[in-house]
């Protein structure tokens, strides 16, 4: 009944809106937030909405915003918790997932529920000072800008971005790319600020007369939100209905007329926002933003309860009422779970939020950095407790890493290693697990130290990729899960892991041998043990790389009809197989011995890194779906470092030999 009344009221309001000319001479059309010729979508951020938000009281506590964090939103093709979207969005804009300690969720909540307070948050990262100057801003050292700083140059930014857009993607300069990126980010920001526009007080809906306030039973104003007025629509309808045809309206009636026209305008101007939190009942994959639903009477009728909850959330956020906010959020989430049961059933929102907050990858990285340091200490001071500590730290790191991988599999509902980013945690996990297994058998500390080295290096690189944004992205059709593809990718990464481990152990072996060119029997035994480890892991590397390459060929044959196409990534895997084969055959024929094998294993690590990363930088072929700028430089730096290492070991051996033989001749 209530909704019918709303509908009726809305219709009456609309008809009055349409007949506005009859009331010409009254207040002019209320000034809309001015659009700078940016097109209908771009309304700027109001500075003051007349009723300030106390929501800042909720600023520090993610706990109070928990209900909002767990709200389901359709973003980038996947239904995910709002918190993930908040992090992704903030990383995209500013490069970090928090703002000076304030969590992404908190910032996001402010943008959605109290946008007028977010104008001065430095959330837009503009790396290139030229771009900042082009928009008319003075470049700032930390490269983070606020919306208010950008606002005056917004029209210019739009124009420049439009020009940059006409250039073909491959030919765009860095400045052009940055312009487009910045404009996109600001546009997205403005878009999100309109998410709950209907529930936020608007200066267009200001009530000045106490009689009006009494007639409509309004709380303290002076401005009100669209929804607050909508709730009073029957009363407004009654008053409008009772307008005498020939007598001029009273001041109160005038005010009500003005309000109704503002409401009409506002209801028509709300366009979609990216906060797609309302699933269309009966249609999977069609999620709507609140503004869309409010603007369509039919949908509003169906989702009235949910919209109400959102309005309550906005209101309680702005008043700083944590309890009411939580209650409204819980009610909303419960309703949505009922509406889109199937889609929500396919998500794991609780797990995802837990994983976001725990951030196991970051913690694992930290643990491995510490364990690396402690591991080095063990080689200087051979103390049992140092050894144990390294073990515990590495073990804990591995546990967190595994948790991260498993959680990802559950959340994304697909096998691991389906994107370039995911290869890093997986390779790290496999190589560290194998290293720890080897350490259990040999107990020399060498395998343990390699584990810490690999953990540190690989996870640090992984975190760079994570800075790219949401690491849980949807895949293009050709990469849809498929038995051959999944097995191919997993085996290849295991192959990478084995070769990487072999290379890591080889580093230690070379350093050891270089430092002690004269080998005592204990050293000889210990080195023999290490050499067996290197050889064994290399052999496994060959096995898995070969199987992985072949499975890749089978997948290619099943998907587009040819087993081998000389794709750069295929070639990279082939290079690893060839190199491992060369080493093993050379050893078999006595062409290289222990030191040579270790050096070749280090070169093997270089080849693995080229196959793994380098092929993506060639930007050609079927495998170019993962790309991070600046990576090329880092890759070359890594290769250079390895070459220097090998030369250094060679030089060190020579130096140490001379030193020791000098000592010997001196002593003889």
């Amino acid at each position, binding site marked *: 009944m209530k909704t019918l009344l709303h509908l009726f009221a809305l219709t009456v309001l609309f008809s009055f809106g349409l007949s506005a000319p009859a009331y010409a001479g009254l207040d002019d059309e209320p000034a809309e937030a001015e659009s700078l010729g940016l097109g209908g979508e771009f309304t700027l951020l109001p500075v003051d909405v007349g009723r300030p938000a106390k929501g800042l009281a909720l600023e520090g506590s993610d706990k109070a915003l928990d209900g909002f964090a767990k709200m389901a939103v359709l973003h980038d093709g996947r239904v995910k918790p709002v918190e993930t979207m908040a992090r992704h969005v903030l990383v995209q804009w500013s490069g970090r997932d928090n703002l000076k300690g304030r969590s992404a969720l908190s910032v996001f909540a402010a943008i959605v529920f109290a946008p007028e307070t977010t104008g001065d948050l430095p959330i837009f990262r503009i790396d290139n000072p030229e771009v900042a100057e082009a928009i008319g801003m003075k470049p700032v050292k930390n490269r983070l800008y606020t919306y208010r700083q950008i606002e005056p140059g917004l029209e210019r930014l739009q124009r420049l971005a439009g020009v940059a857009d006409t250039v073909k993607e491959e030919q765009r300069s860095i400045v052009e790319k940055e312009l487009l990126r910045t404009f996109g980010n600001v546009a997205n920001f403005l878009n999100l600020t309109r998410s709950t526009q209907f529930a936020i007080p608007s200066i267009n809906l200001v009530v000045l007369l106490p009689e009006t306030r009494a007639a409509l039973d309004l709380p303290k104003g002076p401005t009100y939100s669209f929804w607050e007025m909508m709730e009073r629509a029957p009363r407004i309808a009654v008053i409008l209905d009772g307008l005498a045809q020939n007598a001029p309206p009273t001041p109160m009636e005038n005010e009500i007329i003005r309000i109704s026209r503002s409401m009409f305008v506002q209801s028509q101007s709300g366009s979609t926002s990216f906060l797609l939190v309302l699933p269309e009942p009966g249609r999977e994959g069609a999620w709507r933003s609140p503004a869309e639903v409010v603007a369509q009477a039919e949908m509003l009728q169906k989702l009235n309860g949910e919209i109400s909850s959102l309005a309550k959330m906005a209101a309680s956020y702005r008043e700083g009422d944590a309890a009411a906010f939580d209650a409204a959020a819980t009610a909303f989430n419960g309703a949505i779970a009922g509406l889109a049961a199937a889609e929500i059933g396919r998500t794991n929102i609780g797990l995802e939020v837990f994983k976001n907050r725990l951030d196991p990858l970051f913690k694992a990285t930290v643990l491995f950095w510490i364990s690396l340091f402690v591991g080095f200490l063990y080689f200087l001071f051979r103390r049992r407790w140092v050894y144990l500590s390294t073990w515990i730290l590495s073990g804990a790191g591995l546990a967190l890493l595994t948790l991260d991988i498993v959680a990802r599999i559950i959340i994304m509902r697909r096998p691991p290693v389906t994107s370039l980013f995911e290869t890093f945690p997986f390779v790290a996990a496999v190589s560290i697990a194998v290293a720890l297994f080897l350490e259990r058998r040999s107990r020399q500390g060498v395998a343990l130290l390699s584990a810490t080295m690999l953990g540190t290096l690989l996870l640090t690189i992984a975190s760079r990729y994570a800075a790219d944004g949401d690491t849980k992205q949807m895949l293009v059709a050709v990469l849809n899960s498929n038995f051959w593809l999944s097995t191919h990718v997993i085996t290849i990464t295991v192959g990478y892991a084995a070769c990487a481990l072999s290379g890591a152990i080889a580093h230690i072996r070379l350093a050891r041998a270089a430092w002690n060119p004269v080998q005592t029997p204990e050293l000889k035994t210990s080195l023999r043990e290490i050499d067996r480890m290197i050889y064994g892991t290399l052999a496994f590397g060959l096995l898995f790389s070969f199987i992985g390459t072949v499975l890749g060929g089978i997948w290619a044959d099943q998907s587009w*009809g040819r087993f081998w196409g000389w794709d750069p990534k295929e070639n990279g895997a082939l290079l690893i197989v060839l190199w491992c084969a060369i080493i093993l055959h050379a050893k078999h024929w006595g062409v290289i011995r222990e030191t040579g094998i270790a050096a070749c294993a280090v070169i093997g690590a270089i080849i693995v890194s080229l196959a793994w990363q380098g092929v993506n930088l060639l930007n050609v072929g079927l495998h170019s779906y993962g790309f991070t700028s600046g990576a090329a430089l880092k890759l070359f730096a890594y290769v250079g470092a390895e070459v220097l290492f090998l030369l250094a070991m060679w030089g060190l051996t020579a130096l140490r030999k001379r030193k020791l033989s000098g000592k010997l001749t001196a002593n003889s």
Partner: protein
Amino acid sequence: MSPAPGETPPPKTTPKWKQTRARIARHRFVKAALHPAITLTGLFMLLLLVFFGTLYQADHGLYEAQRIFFGYIIWVKGVIPFPGSSTVLWVLTLQLVLFMLVQLPLVWKKFGLWVVHGGLVLLLVGGFITQMMAVESQLTLAEGQTGQTTTSYDKWELVAFTTQGDTNTVTAYADDDLKPGAVLHLNEYKSRLTVKTYYGNAAAFTSMATGGVMPYLNASRIASMEPRKPEKESPANAPGVIATLHTEGQEDRDILLYGLERNPLALTLGGERVFLQLRRRNYPLDFSITLRDFIRTLHPGTETPKSFESDVTLNHHGASRDLKIWMNNPLRHEGYTFFQASFSMDQTGEFSTFAVVTNPGRLLPYISSLMVFGGMLLHFMIHFLGYVRRTART
């Protein structure tokens, strides 16, 4: 029966063929052929070829990279010869076969290695067969359209055809045969073409550039051509050919055919109306495929495609079957495999493109990979068990 004390046990007799095998293995030619240096150098050369070939591919495209690095000889800087992949692979394959024939020990301990290397030989043979005999082409259909011919991506042919109703009778010469001086006989039309010039990739200019003079017979008023460097994406090449047409009872004429022309050159030869054209190779099929519907699904709320599917009907000798082709799920029929490759959509409708592959050596990589994998596993298990036993003792 154990020998009596003081007697040496009777020698175990090696079968005659094993003795011969061992003797052959000792021959100096054979020893030279089986020298590890050849294997290691060969593998290392292969490594270098793959590495530099991949880098070359990034700038010049796959087709050119394959042509240069997969040939028999590469002329570095035009003067220094370096073996191409084909040469290296031939040498390694032959050495491997020889190795298995005369040297690989026939003991159970090395059984894993036998399987591995046998599988490798099979893999290389399969690769060779694919290289020689596989044909890749494509078929694009609009919704509702039926196709019976697939078209090559980047291989061309010079055709002479006549049309009766809806059928063309075609005589086609492959682009590989279009070398200067080659004679292409068209006996059915009492003619022959002698190729004067052929460019794998060319730009064509109309008579405006030559002031209205038309030195060649051509359907699009093309008066001259200039060769161009091969395109990075080989399907983008536009070849051109100039040939002298000799027909019985007529004067010799020079004709020019260009790959990007829409329409063939229409001539009267031997009393028939014959069309001459330089076009991408067509492969007629024994059966036809009708595209009933093309469906593209996007990930919700994005522009990223989630799946493509084509509902097709396969018509073969009167019998029709309704089937679905989608990503990673091809249609296999009569040695042809149809893969959902891509699509396009415009105002007039939706088009689905299928990649069509026929390859007699298709199954060899599967068999050989299984053999290599199994063999490696076998071999490493034998050795790994040894390692575990050794370290368990310490």
